[in-house]
């Protein structure tokens, strides 16, 4: 079903962080960009379509708009908006936004760090773009708040438009509706360490549509496709929920260890899951319009021997290729469909 391709070597290994791989395919230039986080550095590789040429760049965590920092970067992700693409980095100190090739930093937001250090860690995590009724980028924090930034079509005039306070635990992941159809009301889903999921409608004022309670396990990765919330948990289970009603569509005992990454290929409904058990699995989601039921079937499993998977992403909207990173592994492993 899938064949392993030549890996891309990266300058440093991948840290054991959730969703530690971001992929940006640039069809018109026949390039694919990858980012992998390691400590206070983001390794960015751009790979040519033929898989022969690579160029590397490293982005550092910052303290303020100029000074380089040793604070840890927690996540790096591209946000695709209709007019521009921004690369967002979240760290223990704040949020950095760059042009898509990482060349210029356009925005810095400092996190509120208490004067006296408390037991709780302070960081930002969870990055997603929302494009209905305006262009926004949502970033989660360790306090549970979700920061909503309003993004202009071009330039650096980015402002913090709203702070959403419905979570009480550190945000783990935020996802945006990936299907191209306009019929779905829910735009954004946010997940936290306790396993609580919040569904939002984007706009000048974000509206909370639904809260899906935790069932006792941390949710490390979440995706939204055709009104279906797909959540991966520390128990190794994947659950599919209806975004508006919160009804459970399916429960999958998917992995034997903590799930670290999920990705959905919006054009085909393929789902990719990667976990600490060294396995990467491909699933197929299907929605039957008459009965409104959602089905999920297992399609394929790849074993990356003795590697804790920490990042997994499809490289195209159809899901014909995907890439995987592993903890302490200095390469991006790629697979293509045969």
């Amino acid at each position: 079903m899938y064949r392993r391709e030549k890996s891309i070597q990266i300058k440093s290994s991948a840290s054991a962080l959730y969703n530690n791989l971001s992929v940006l395919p640039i069809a018109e230039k026949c390039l694919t960009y990858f980012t992998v986080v390691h400590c206070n550095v983001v390794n960015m590789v751009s790979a040519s379509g033929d898989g022969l040429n690579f160029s590397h760049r490293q982005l550092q965590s910052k303290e303020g708009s100029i000074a380089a920092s040793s604070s840890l970067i927690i996540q790096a992700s591209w946000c695709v908006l209709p007019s521009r693409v921004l690369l967002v980095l979240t760290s223990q100190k704040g949020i950095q936004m760059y042009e898509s090739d990482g060349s210029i930093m356009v925005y810095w937001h400092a996190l509120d760090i208490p004067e006296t250090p408390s037991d709780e860690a302070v960081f930002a995590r969870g990055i997603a773009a929302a494009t209905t009724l305006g262009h926004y980028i949502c970033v989660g924090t360790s306090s549970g708040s979700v920061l909503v930034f309003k993004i202009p079509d071009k330039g650096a005039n980015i402002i913090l438009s709203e702070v959403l306070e419905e979570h009480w635990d550190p945000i783990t992941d935020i996802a945006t509706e990936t299907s191209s159809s306009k019929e779905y009301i829910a735009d954004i889903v946010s997940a936290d360490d306790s396993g609580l999921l919040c569904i939002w409608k984007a706009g000048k004022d974000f509206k909370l549509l639904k809260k899906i309670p935790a069932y006792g396990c941390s949710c490390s990765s979440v995706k939204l496709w055709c009104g279906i919330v797909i959540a991966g948990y520390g128990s190794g289970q994947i659950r599919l929920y209806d975004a508006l009603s919160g009804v459970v569509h399916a429960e999958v005992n998917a992995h034997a260890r903590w799930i670290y990454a999920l990705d959905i290929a919006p054009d085909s409904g393929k789902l990719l899951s990667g976990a600490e058990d060294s396995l990467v699995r491909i699933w197929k989601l299907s929605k039957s319009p008459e009965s409104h039921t959602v089905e999920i079937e297992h399609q394929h499993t790849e074993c990356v021997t003795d590697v804790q998977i920490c990042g997994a992403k499809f490289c195209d909207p159809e899901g014909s290729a995907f890439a995987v990173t592993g903890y302490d592994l200095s390469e991006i492993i790629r697979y293509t469909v045969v």
Partner: protein
Amino acid sequence: MEHSNIEFYEKQLSTRNKTRERFCDSSTFIRFLPLPLEQQRRTERETFPQPAGRPASLVVKERVCWYPVCKPVSIFLKDKVQNSNGRFVLPTSGPVPYGTQIPGLIRMFNYNGDEVKKSEFPNGGNYTSPLQEGSFDLYGGRVLKLGTNMYSVSRPVETHMSGTSKSSASHAKENAAPNPLAKEELNLLARLMGHLEVKKTTGSESGFRVNLFSTDEEEEEAAILRPSEFSYQFINIQATQDQQSNEELARIMGEFKEEDTVSQSPCSKGDDLLAMMDGL
């Protein structure tokens, strides 16, 4: 050339054995955990194979610079829990953690919450049911091995060692949790043979009666000869003193003492006892 290779590591070990700090050599991190030096040398030879024709010291330094990631060499290598490239083995078999289900089941529901479809998929491994949850109380079974002493289990010595391996192997065995009853029996035996200091026991346990003599009359005779200042509850066997008065016991004691070797360490006492019991 081999010597300079070993000297290089010996120097690192002597400074780093005291602490277990990460060591940075140019762009790499290598952590050395204390290992018997003999084993350390053999492990290093195995993990750093020397290509022919190049000075070993140079090769070692080059290889130190090549590895960009953490390569701790530890006792886990022997347990096959760690590979020789430093990566830990992640088995796709064995029990799943508490709170996790064995992968393979998909359950699908309708809008009312009723299960409408069930399907299974091959999980690609050989997983078994989770173990019970470990106790979070101050005292209680933890179930997992995390936090336990990784040096307490005896290991078969794979690398070929000359001479002294036998004593170190039995020394390690001693740390395995002993059966308390067996321990008591051995203590009694040792006491009887006069190896341990005579201790006053708190009285014979109910249901356990030792008769060292072949007849009850002999036991009574010994009881008469026992110094009267000792209270009736205590069993005080002074084999050395009674040797003259009881010929039979003296004969048995003599048979034991033939193979006896005088030694001070408690480890070899255990050895002697076991060796003697094997010989009987």
